[in-house]
């Protein structure tokens, strides 16, 4: 190869390596110009190309009888019956939120909404998975992000119905902001963003293009360092009102003849939107940046192609149809400009008026990024727990549960979700605060159940087991409301994969998700990868795969809530409690320790426990069900008391030979539910448990205003409620 002078500084600006540059030169048989290099830089970023994670993502199961659309489109889609498709996807906006919490979170919500809209679906729900450093130090991030999620979703009129919030040291400089959107569309109206044949016109609709967000995708693919503040201009500013108009216009446009495709402009802006919609049809495209409406003067073609200005959509229409569609844009006061057309030469050609400024093969842009095979080295993680060093279980277990429920990771999430409109749309049948939200599906008895879950600490201890637990917990949350899990969207939040330990974590976590999804029969239909989550303040984040999961209730009248529903009901625990405490919230809060091993996971037992709860719910045998998660059995039981507004009186908890009482109460053994049932249903319930081969243990009865385990625990509900409700204030 002839020697090529590589300008390192220029490459750093577009986040390409020297090897990648040489690959480009070889494939083009020439050096790229500045515009081309910028376009390749953003599309070859990890954020857009998944060059690091792609070989791993192939390990995930993506097929199933209900899958209408798997990964590769703007969002995934599942058939839920009665003619409906559910469309959903999760996406991260971690780095922008670190620097500008409100706008970072708001535009994260705006972006994921557009992904669902592009599929022709009306968004019906949002969920958010948030992680911050400890309070009070990280309050600025926490408050700003919650306000941003609410600010965008509330203004759009899309309910935010579920989510999770955690606080851990490792997220102090690099919070995680993952937003998930769920939409509904008639299955036969599902859109795909394929540009189609030559001559189709490219319409750019919505906001004018500015200099905001240039290099956002590249920025997402770098660590946060001291210079991150200087990248504030790479964070976009959201305009949810404009997006609401865009949403309504797209809903009117999608079913019209002549509309070929709708594609969201997100990371990498026009470059990505045009290249990807062309690539899906094996086509090319020609566009003129001079036709792109600008909000600033003097923008270069480079800036127009890379701008990540929000609230823009690319609409592909058949030639000659733009005039009849103009009325829709006029109705919603939206600007719509023809900026180019689809071609059949497989090239993306960019002109600026009469001058050609870029000419690149579409395939080189979208699929050309060389896969990076990185080195993996096992990360031993924190040491295993030494029970002897821990001393005996605390004498006052009631005080422990008070402290746990009053801690930021276990306290009531109401201070967060009351800032989100979770009722707009008249569909929220189970609101936030339980295990999963349930929405009604119009004109049917169907209930759509939604949850999002992750556990960075378990994954830090063992990414393979931790990732499986994330999937298992999501499925369990759905089963707890009586819904059968159907499918997954995943958001993989990790540190810098160039560190062999991080790449190993990523590998193991993806394997864990794959194994669990196969075992539980839930395909992964969409997702997002966010790497380089590191900061000077918190170092590399814990490996944090986040699982968004959709479930279905054939009859939503059979739904279950987490709170105890009536006095005198039997309180039972489904599943086996082991003598384990590794990775527990109890260990962290009470003993200040993060130590392994992660809780053991038996996927067959998970499946059996879920099937038992689903069967019991369908037969009307249960009055409530609640997943046992962080804080263990006692925290879960106390939550069921708090949510139901009634206490419980239980016999003393017995442990196996050599078992610790604190492990029995606060250990986080998987595959468990706290359920309640009318006394008359007990015989049938026991029989059903036998059929499913699941342990079912009677604990006591509901009633009163105290949580009592005879001789072991005795706490007043008002006292618990105060601690729980004030934990996040």
């Amino acid at each position, binding site marked *: 190869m002839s020697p090529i002078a590589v300008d390192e500084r220029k490459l750093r600006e577009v986040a390409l390596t020297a090897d990648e540059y040489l690959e480009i030169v070889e494939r083009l048989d020439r050096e790229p110009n500045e515009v081309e290099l910028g376009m390749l830089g953003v599309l070859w970023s990890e954020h857009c190309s998944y060059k690091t994670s792609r070989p791993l993502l192939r390990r995930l199961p993506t097929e199933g009888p209900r899958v209408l659309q798997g990964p590769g489109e703007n969002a995934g889609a599942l058939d839920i019956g009665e003619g409906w498709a559910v469309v959903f996807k999760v996406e991260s906006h971690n780095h922008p939120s670190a620097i500008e919490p409100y706008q970072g979170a708001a535009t994260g919500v705006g972006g994921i909404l557009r992904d669902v809209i592009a599929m022709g679906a009306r968004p019906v729900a949002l969920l958010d998975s948030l992680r911050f450093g400890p309070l009070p130090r990280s309050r600025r991030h926490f408050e700003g992000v919650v306000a941003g999620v609410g600010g965008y979703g*509330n203004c759009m009129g899309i309910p935010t119905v579920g989510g999770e919030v955690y606080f851990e040291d490792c997220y102090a400089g690099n919070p995680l902001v993952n937003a998930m959107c769920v939409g509904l569309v008639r299955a036969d109206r599902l859109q795909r963003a394929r540009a189609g044949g030559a001559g189709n016109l490219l319409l750019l609709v919505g906001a004018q293009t500015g200099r905001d967000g240039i290099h956002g995708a590249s920025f997402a693919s770098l660590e946060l360092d001291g210079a991150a503040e200087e990248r504030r201009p790479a964070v976009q500013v959201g*305009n949810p009102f404009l997006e609401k108009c865009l949403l309504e216009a797209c809903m009117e446009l999608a079913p019209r003849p002549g509309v070929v495709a709708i594609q969201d402009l997100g990371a990498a802006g026009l470059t990505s939107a045009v290249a990807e919609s062309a690539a899906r049809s094996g086509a090319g495209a020609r566009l003129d940046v001079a036709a792109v409406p600008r909000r600033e003067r003097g923008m270069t073609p480079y800036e127009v192609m890379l701008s990540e200005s929000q609230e823009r959509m690319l609409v592909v229409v058949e030639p000659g149809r733009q005039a009849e569609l103009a009325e829709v844009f006029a109705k919603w006061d939206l600007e719509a400009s023809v900026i180019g057309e689809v071609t059949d030469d497989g090239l993306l050609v960019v002109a600026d008026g009469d001058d050609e400024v870029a000419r690149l093969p579409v395939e080189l842009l979208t699929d050309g990024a060389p896969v990076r095979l990185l080195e993996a080295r096992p990360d031993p993680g924190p040491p295993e727990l030494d029970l002897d060093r821990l001393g005996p279980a605390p004498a006052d277990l009631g005080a422990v549960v008070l402290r746990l429920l009053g801690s930021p990771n276990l306290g009531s999430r109401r201070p967060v979700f009351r800032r989100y409109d*979770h*009722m*707009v749309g008249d569909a*929220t049948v189970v609101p936030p605060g339980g295990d999963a939200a349930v929405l009604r599906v119009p004109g049917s008895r169907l209930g759509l159940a939604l949850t999002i879950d992750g556990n960075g600490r378990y994954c830090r201890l063992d990414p393979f087991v931790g990732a499986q637990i994330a999937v298992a917990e999501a499925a369990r949350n759905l089963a707890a409301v009586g819904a059968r899990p159907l499918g997954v969207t995943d958001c993989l939040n990790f540190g810098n994969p160039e560190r062999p330990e991080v790449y190993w974590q990523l590998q193991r976590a993806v394997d864990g998700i794959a194994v669990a999804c196969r075992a539980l029969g839930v395909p992964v239909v969409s997702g997002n990868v966010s790497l380089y989550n590191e900061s000077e303040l918190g170092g590399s984040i814990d490996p944090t795969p986040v699982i968004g999961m959709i479930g279905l209730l054939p009859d939503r009248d059979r739904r279950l809530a987490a709170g105890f529903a009536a006095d005198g009901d039997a309180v039972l625990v489904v599943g086996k409690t082991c003598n384990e405490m590794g990775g527990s919230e109890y260990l962290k809060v009470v003993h200040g320790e993060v130590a392994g091993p992660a809780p053991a996971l038996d996927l067959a037992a998970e499946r059996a426990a879920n099937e038992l709860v689903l069967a019991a719910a369908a037969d009307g045998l249960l009055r409530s069900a609640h997943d046992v998660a962080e804080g263990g059995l006692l925290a879960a039981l106390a939550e069921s008391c708090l949510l139901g507004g009634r206490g419980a009186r239980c016999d003393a908890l017995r442990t196996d030979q050599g078992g610790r009482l604190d492990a029995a109460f606060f250990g986080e053994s998987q595959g468990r539910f706290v359920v309640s049932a009318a006394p008359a249903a007990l015989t049938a319930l026991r029989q059903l448990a036998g059929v499913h081969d699941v342990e079912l243990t009677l604990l006591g009865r509901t009633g009163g205003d105290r949580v009592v385990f005879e001789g072991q625990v005795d706490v007043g509900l008002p006292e618990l409620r105060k601690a729980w409700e004030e934990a996040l204030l």
Partner: protein
Amino acid sequence: MRFGVVVFPGTWSDRDCGHVVRDVLGADLVYLWHKDRDLRGADCVILPGGFSYGDYLRAGAIARFSPVMETVAEFAARGGLVWGICNGFQVLCEAGLLPGALVRNDCLEFRCEWTHLRCEREATPFTGCLGRGQVVRVPIAHGEGNYVADPATLDALERRGQVVFRYCDAAGTTTRVANPNGSHANIAGIVNERGNVLGMMPHPERCAEAELGGTDGLLLFRSVLEAAAGAVRA
């Protein structure tokens, strides 16, 4: 009986109001586009919740200038039933059809939660199915629902019995804790002097079916249905 539901750009409770009117109440429904002046024979015009025109500048401040609002004002002047919910209440205040204003919640945060309301006046077209002092459970969802007015206006509202709903606890007592936004005298909804224009921050259209958590909101829609028999038509 026909309800007209106004749609501004940025309105989102239009679909929920429409659903209750048509699918739950079984009444006629027409959507009224903000650029139109024709109320299309509506017996009651609903200004629904949302962020009309993004609520930039001030909630409801731009919507009041839309063409449809001219006709709504004329309709109200003739005694037609006009019902502003949430953002619609803000629009009615900005348009001068109701006195006072809605400012930022005193907690400085958006609030979405169930509230209890005490009906202070049953003799309105919107509350005929309620008894005086009856407590209903209706959710709110707003960031700017803190009702304020000058002392003379507040005094006049009380004297003339124009306060229709107050935030209260489950037992009907108007406590500070039961007031979600800092509204003066726990005011949640008021009517104009004539009693044909109601503005309220809570969302009755979100509680008209049991599976959504309550049915008290339906009482208000039923009241309008009954009152409209003798009301002015657009």
